[in-house]
């Protein structure tokens, strides 16, 4: 598969995620959209890693493996972020009984 396809695919996914972040006002949905963005990046990284491997396999059998490991770390971080994020959202919900980001406007100007 030409790498371009993967690039465009994941960029598309990424942008859908961005659009989601911009259009929704439910904190959790927004957060999900962000996860979507991360996944798009993961896909891209894996694709690149395979691309590099394809290019350099002869010289270095492990070429391109860094990309996949990076994805692994991204997943780690994402997991941690999710736990924290959800905790914060829940705390918010406890206090305001809403997770609508548009109500978050006590702080402005």
């Amino acid at each position: 598969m030409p790498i371009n396809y993967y690039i465009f695919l994941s960029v598309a996914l990424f942008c859908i995620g961005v659009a989601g972040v911009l259009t929704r006002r439910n904190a959790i949905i927004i957060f999900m959209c962000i996860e979507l963005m991360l996944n798009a990046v993961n896909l891209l990284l894996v694709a690149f890693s395979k691309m590099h491997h394809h290019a350099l396999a002869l010289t270095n059998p492990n070429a391109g493996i860094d990309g996949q490991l990076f994805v692994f770390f991204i997943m780690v971080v994402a997991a941690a972020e999710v736990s924290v994020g959800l905790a914060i959202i829940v705390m918010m919900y406890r206090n305001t009984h809403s997770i609508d980001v548009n109500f978050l406007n006590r702080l402005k100007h």
Partner: protein
Amino acid sequence: MHITQILFWSLSILALLSAILVVVSKNPVHSVLWLILVFFSISGHYILLNAQFLAIVNLIVYAGAIMVLFLFVFMLMNLNADTEPQKNKWLKIAGVIAGGSLLLVLVAALKNADMKNQLAEMNTGSIGLIHNLGLVLFQEYVVPFEISSVLFLSAMVGVVVIGKKD
């Protein structure tokens, strides 16, 4: 048309469609489900790219753990479609336009990348296998691996601090 190509296209379309549905569907639970579908299709891609380990981890961590977590939260707050009031139209449109134009710009920036000849190797190559990954992970990447434990630790502490009733 080669089978991998067919799979690639179908998976891509599936991913995109369900991603869009994540964004548009009113009911948050639905969008969770759609997101899970996205993850599945992405894992499919991983498999196509012969990155089995990541495919599995993706399923377990994301589709499994994280999404379940989301669902729990939703149920905890028992939110449903009508609980989310509609954002005002203009901001919505602006958001969509912004996202779209971002896509356009990125594509425009990247289309003339001389990557026509660059191919992503499909369903061959061994780097995606647990064996190799593990070796590299615990030899070269041991420091970041350990450090990520700090990350987890801090996340844990943080969640405790936040979640604990005082």
